[in-house]
C-alpha cells in the first residue's frame, strides 16, 4: 500500500452517469488484485472532505494502467467525472484483501448494480488463468446496466437481468440465478458484489446448497487504511462476533461469516 499520484489517461462516459476511468500508475497496476480498491482524493477543498473508495475494475501491469468504473451519485463522483486528461489524482492503494479462488469449476460471478467493477477485474484474471466462467449481472432497469463487452474479453458466459425486464431476463438477479441453478448449473465457487440486501438474499439462498461464496462488502469509509474503525461490519469468526474493518479484513468475506 502506497500513496500515489495517478495520471488520468482516459475518462469516458460509457452510458448516462457511468464513467470509465483509466489511470497511469505502474505500482498500483502491478500490485492490485481483484477485490482490492483504491482511496481517491477528489477535489482539493473541504467539501467533499474525505477521499472516495473505488474498486479496481482492471489493471494492466505491462502498460502500468489501472481501470475504474464509477457511477455519478453525488458531489465527489461529479467532481471525479470532470477530471481532465493528464491531471494527477492522489490515491492510496491497493487497499483491502482480495477474492481468492479455489480453482473449482465453473466460477460463477454475481454482480448487482454497481458491484460489477471488481467482478470485471476478477473475471478477466480468472479467464486469463483459463477458468470456466459465468457472470450474472443484474440491475433495476436496462439504463443501469453497463455494456460488458466493452470491458470483458470474450469467454465468460454473461447473463443479464433487470427487475423491470427492460433488458436480459426479467426479475431479481437472485431469482434469475436460482432458475439457472434449477436448470442445471453447478457452480464450483461463487463470487458476489452488490448492494447488501442482494448479498444477504444470495447468502440466505445459498445456505442450503452450500457452494463456497465470497462476498465483497461496502461501508462508508474515512481512512480506508484501518486506523479509524469506521467501516465496521459484524463478522462471526472462531465462534465470536466482532466488528471487522471492510477496508482491512475486507472487503471480501466468506458469506457464512457475515452476520447479515
Amino acid at each position, binding site marked *: 500500500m502506497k500513496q500515489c499520484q495517478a495520471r488520468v489517461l482516459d475518462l469516458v462516459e460509457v452510458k448516462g452517469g457511468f464513467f470509465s476511468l483509466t489511470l497511469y500508475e505502474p505500482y498500483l497496476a502491478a500490485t492490485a488484485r481483484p477485490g482490492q480498491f483504491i482511496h481517491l482524493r477528489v477535489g482539493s477543498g473541504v467539501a*467533499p472532505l474525505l*477521499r472516495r473508495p473505488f474498486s479496481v475494475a482492471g489493471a494492466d501491469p505491462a502498460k502500468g494502467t489501472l481501470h475504474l468504473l464509477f457511477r455519478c451519485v453525488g458531489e465527489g463522483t461529479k467532481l471525479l467525472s470532470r477530471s481532465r486528461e493528464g491531471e494527477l489524482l492522489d490515491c492510496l492503494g491497493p487497499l483491502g484483501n482480495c477474492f481468492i479462488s479455489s480453482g473449482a469449476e465453473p466460477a460463477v460471478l454475481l454482480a448487482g448494480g454497481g458491484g460489477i467493477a471488481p467482478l470485471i477485474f476478477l473475471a478477466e484474471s480468472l479467464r486469463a488463468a483459463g477458468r470456466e466462467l459465468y457472470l450474472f449481472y443484474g440491475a433495476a432497469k436496462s439504463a443501469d446496466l453497463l455494456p460488458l463487452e466493452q470491458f470483458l474479453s470474450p469467454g465468460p458466459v454473461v447473463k443479464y437481468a433487470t427487475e423491470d425486464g427492460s433488458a436480459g431476463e426479467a426479475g431479481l438477479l437472485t431469482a434469475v440465478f436460482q432458475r439457472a441453478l434449477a436448470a442445471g448449473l453447478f457452480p464450483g465457487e461463487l463470487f458476489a458484489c452488490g448492494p447488501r440486501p442482494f448479498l444477504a438474499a444470495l447468502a440466505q439462498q445459498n445456505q442450503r446448497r452450500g457452494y463456497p461464496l465470497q462476498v465483497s462488502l461496502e461501508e462508508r*469509509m474515512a481512512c480506508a487504511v484501518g486506523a*479509524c474503525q*469506521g467501516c465496521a461490519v459484524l463478522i462471526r469468526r472462531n465462534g465470536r462476533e466482532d466488528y471487522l474493518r471492510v477496508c482491512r479484513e475486507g472487503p471480501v468475506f466468506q458469506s457464512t461469516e457475515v452476520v447479515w
Partner: protein
Amino acid sequence: MPFLNVKLGPLELNTPLLTASGTFGFGEEYASLMQLEGLGGLVTKTLTLLPRAGNPPPRLVETPAGLLNAIGLQNPGLEHFLAAELPRLRQWNLPLIVSIAGDTPEEYVQMAEALCREKGIAALELNLSCPNVKKGGVLFSADAALLETLVSRVRLAWEGPLIAKLSPNVTSIVEAARAAAAGGAEIISAINTLRGMVIDVAARRPLLGNLSGGLSGPAIRPVAIKMVYDIYAATGLPVIGMGGIMHTADALQFILAGAAAVAVGTANFVEPHTIPQIAAGLHQYLEEAGLDNLQELVGAAHL
C-alpha cells in the same frame, strides 16, 4: 533553522504536532505510509479497561466540511494494549500519549495505575467526553465537581504529565478546564467532537447505527478556536488545540489563540502527510517572520 519544540508544563515535545486520539489507531496502519518519527507525538485511540465492540454500522457519514462518527470507542482493552501494542509503540522513537476512558471514576483510576507501572509513556490523556454511568449518565466534562474529583483520583495513581481532554458540549469549557486543573491536570486537550446527527431522508431515520455521533473536521474549527482562546485567556494552562486542522494556517490559528501544541485528526484521513506538511509549513512561517521559535507565537492573538 527556527525551533518547533514546545513545553506544555511537564511535557516537552520536539514539534507541537500530535495525532488526535482515535484517528491514528495505534500507529501501525500509517507506519507504512509515512515516517512516524516526523510526528511530535502519537496519541493512541482511547482505551477502556475491558475490550469494547463498538457501535453498529454505519459509523460514519460525511457532512458539510465535516465528518460525523460514532465508533463507540471500539478498542481491544487495556490488557491487550499492554501486551501487544505498547511494546511495538515503544520501538518508535516517539512521545507516546495514552488516551483512556471509563464508565466510572474507578475504571479511570484502575487504568492509570496499570499504565503508571509501564515505561515509555510520555503522558496520560483522560478522554472526559464519556458519560458517567454511575451518576446517571452525566458527561464527566459537564459537571465541574465530578470532573475535579475524577482527575484528582487519577492524579494519585499516575505520576507523569496528565492531560484532560474536554468535551465541547458544555455551557462553559472554561469551567471544565478549571476543574481539571484543580484536580491536578497540567494540560488541557480541546476539543473533542461536537454532538451531531444526520437523518437519512430516504429511510426516514437517523443514518448512523448509533443514531447520533461526534462532529469533527473543518466545520467545527471556529468553535474549537474560540474554546482554546477562552481557556487560554481564563486559565493560562497549556492547551493542546484541535478541531479541523488541515493546513499550516489552521494550526497557526490555534497556536495564536493559545494552543502550545495542536493535534490533527480528521485531516489524517484526507492526507496522511498532514502533520509533516504542517511541520514544514511552520518552519517556513517562522523563518519568513524572522522568529526563532514557535513558543513566541503561543497566545499571541491575545495581545
